[in-house]
């Protein structure tokens, strides 16, 4: 009898353990109503960054030391995680209600936290500094009327050109393409004259192409996908023609992410639209190609705008010290601190004051400084465009998957986009 009771007790304990693990016994993270962030600054907070250590150890430790000096009795415990594991760790932390007090996140990883209302609304908590930031940077972190994070570092592209291929194609004296439609036209000519591709479309880039062409991607309240427009159909049709003529690489649809950089540095494409930081990689990997590179303004700056990648600093509502967390987030993203970071790296600050610094206005002395001034000009002149936060990695992957058969000429572009729109709307509705 005693044995049965003991075994029964053990089973009950095991069941309780299992059910606790399942999250059925409460402990779900707080969402909905905003939290009070106006309290006194003090105590200990945790701060998590994405792959900034060890390169930026001195910088981050310096910012933390200065913050702790200005706010005696405050301790900031910094952890740095690899970018690859950011989504997985953030998901697990959110599910376990153990997110750090201050988080450095890309928009894709931040999006689900924002949709679930798990992060502090910066429109309220940091209303006093909102005007310091570049509008599109702020907008790119807005999710359904709330701002999920303070913009931190940014990236926006430049157009890299392989001058030798363009000369071979007889395009050396021609003006740079100013839009993706013009890029398609030029690519067809490059393929005709040289047998090489003009550019390599990518999964991550595809929503940016459409956005720049005026395709909204989603409706105003992010409840429905809008990708099947005449402009989108015409663009996909032109990509299919390029696939046929060799204007884009034959393996475009099956290419790995970031392989467009490899293709460009192997001399396989004439154009590459990417962040200026890639110049260093190309210089190291392909010095001969680096010598052939010329730079131009990114596509779309004269139209709807060019793309923008934003890293935000978020504060979870579950933070036990939200006042200090928000204060630290503001301090970290202040103009002075952002400028100091930008000067040590190839990223761009998100505040207008820091972008106004002579560092970004300097006369180009080499490709790196030229790229910096071109990208800074895009940010300062308001030529960047904020993608809706709904257009995250899941949306992007589904859209690219939907248009692949059309690019290969296996499916009519309009049908492919109609199917993609239906599938994307289903994804949005399920959120």
């Amino acid at each position: 009898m005693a044995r049965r009771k003991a075994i029964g007790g053990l089973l009950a304990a095991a069941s309780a353990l299992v059910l606790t693990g399942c999250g059925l016994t409460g402990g779900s993270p707080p969402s909905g109503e905003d939290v009070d962030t106006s309290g006194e600054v003090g105590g200990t907070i945790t701060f998590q960054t994405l792959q900034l250590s060890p390169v930026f150890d001195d910088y981050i430790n310096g910012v933390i030391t200065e913050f702790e000096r200005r706010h005696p009795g405050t301790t900031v415990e910094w952890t740095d995680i690899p970018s690859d594991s950011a989504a997985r760790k953030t998901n697990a932390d959110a599910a376990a209600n153990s997110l750090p007090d201050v988080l450095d996140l890309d928009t894709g990883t931040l999006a689900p936290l924002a949709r679930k209302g798990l992060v502090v609304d910066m429109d309220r908590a940091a209303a006093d500094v909102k005007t310091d930031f570049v509008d599109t940077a702020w907008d790119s972190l807005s999710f359904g009327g709330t701002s999920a994070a303070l913009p931190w570092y940014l990236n926006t592209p430049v157009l890299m050109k392989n001058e030798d291929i363009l000369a071979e194609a007889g395009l050396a004296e021609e003006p740079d393409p100013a839009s993706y439609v013009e890029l398609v036209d030029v690519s067809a000519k490059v393929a005709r004259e040289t047998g090489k591709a003009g550019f390599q479309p990518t999964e991550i880039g595809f929503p940016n192409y459409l956005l720049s062409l005026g395709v909204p991607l989603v409706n105003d309240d992010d409840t429905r996908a809008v990708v099947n427009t005449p402009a989108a159909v015409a663009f996909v049709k032109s990509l299919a023609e390029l696939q046929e003529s060799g204007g884009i690489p034959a393996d475009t649809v099956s290419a790995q992410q970031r392989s467009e950089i490899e293709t460009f540095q192997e001399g396989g494409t004439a154009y590459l639209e990417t962040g200026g930081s890639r110049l260093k990689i190309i210089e190291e990997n392909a010095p001969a190609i680096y010598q052939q590179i010329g730079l131009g303004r990114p596509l779309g700056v004269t139209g709807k705008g060019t793309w923008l990648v934003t890293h935000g600093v978020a504060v979870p509502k579950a933070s036990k010290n939200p006042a200090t967390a928000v204060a630290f987030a503001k301090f970290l993203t202040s103009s002075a601190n952002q400028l100091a970071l930008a000067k040590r790296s190839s990223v761009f600050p998100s505040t207008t004051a820091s972008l106004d610094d002579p560092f970004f206005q300097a006369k180009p002395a080499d490709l790196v400084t030229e790229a910096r001034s071109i990208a800074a000009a895009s940010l300062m002149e308001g030529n960047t465009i904020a993608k809706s936060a709904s257009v995250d990695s899941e949306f992007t992957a589904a859209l690219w998957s939907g248009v692949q058969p059309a690019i290969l000429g296996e499916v009519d572009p309009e049908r492919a986009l109609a199917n993609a729109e239906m599938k994307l709307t289903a994804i949005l509705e399920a959120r």
Partner: protein
Amino acid sequence: MRTLLRRSPPRPRSDAALKRHKWYVPLVFVGPVLILQGTFLFTPLVNTFVLAFTDASTVGGGTFVGLRNFTDLAGDNEFWAAVGRTFIYMAFTVPVIVALSTSLALLVNTSLRGSSVVRLLLFSPMVMPLATIAVMFQFVLESDGLINQVLAGLHLITEPIPFLSSSDLALLSLMLVTIWKGCALSTLITLAALQNVSTELDEAASLDGAGWLRRTWNVTLPQIRGTTILVAVLVSIAVLRVFAEPYIITGGGPGTSTETIVLYLFQKGVSPGTQAGYASAISLVLFVFVLAIAAVSWMLTKRRRA
């Protein structure tokens, strides 16, 4: 002088001897394993089971939704397309792997010169991580990859074959990768079985005038039938869960032409903010498929024993 050491016959255990140990002593022995299994196997399993009946996201939350995920799944054309694709994958790769690995094992089992080198080459895929194999095959199969370059060099093709960029060929290309990788372990298992095949029967058949092919077909293979079934079941279960090949080589594309069940599950419930509840329902259905295959294997084994 011959000495016989005779052990005294074991004394029959009395109930008293059995009761000498406390009832919890066995638990102490199996406890550590139970804790490990409970933590890393059963808890996630039960968690998945519970999540399948909620609308939880990957960032947590979720409320009980009953059978909604399963009814949605029943009407999810993309899921059933992925199921169909996975079963086609299985229908093609399993017989090929079984036939190929059996043939290779028979060849390697001979005492021909150089067979040890062949064994080494044959088993090398087994020690390579699947991710490495997938990346390697991507270089082999792309438009300007090794195969197309060889075929073009031999003037057999004028245009590269779109192994990975055609919806018709991509799945077949992935199957070849799975076959290449899967043959190593299957051959090893079959080879181990062949080592136990009775040589007397083979010699008797030989004396009766049977040639190598006839001896192999009628004498050797029937003796390793159990192992062959085991290999088929193991490969079937592995193929049912195929993920690395489509994920790394094609990403499920072009379109959804190489989207398998596990890849679909991954897309639905592992990326940030996706539907963990729905993905858990998919994994439960996959679990049922695996159970069904295990049941078929059990029935085949049972029938053979009978």
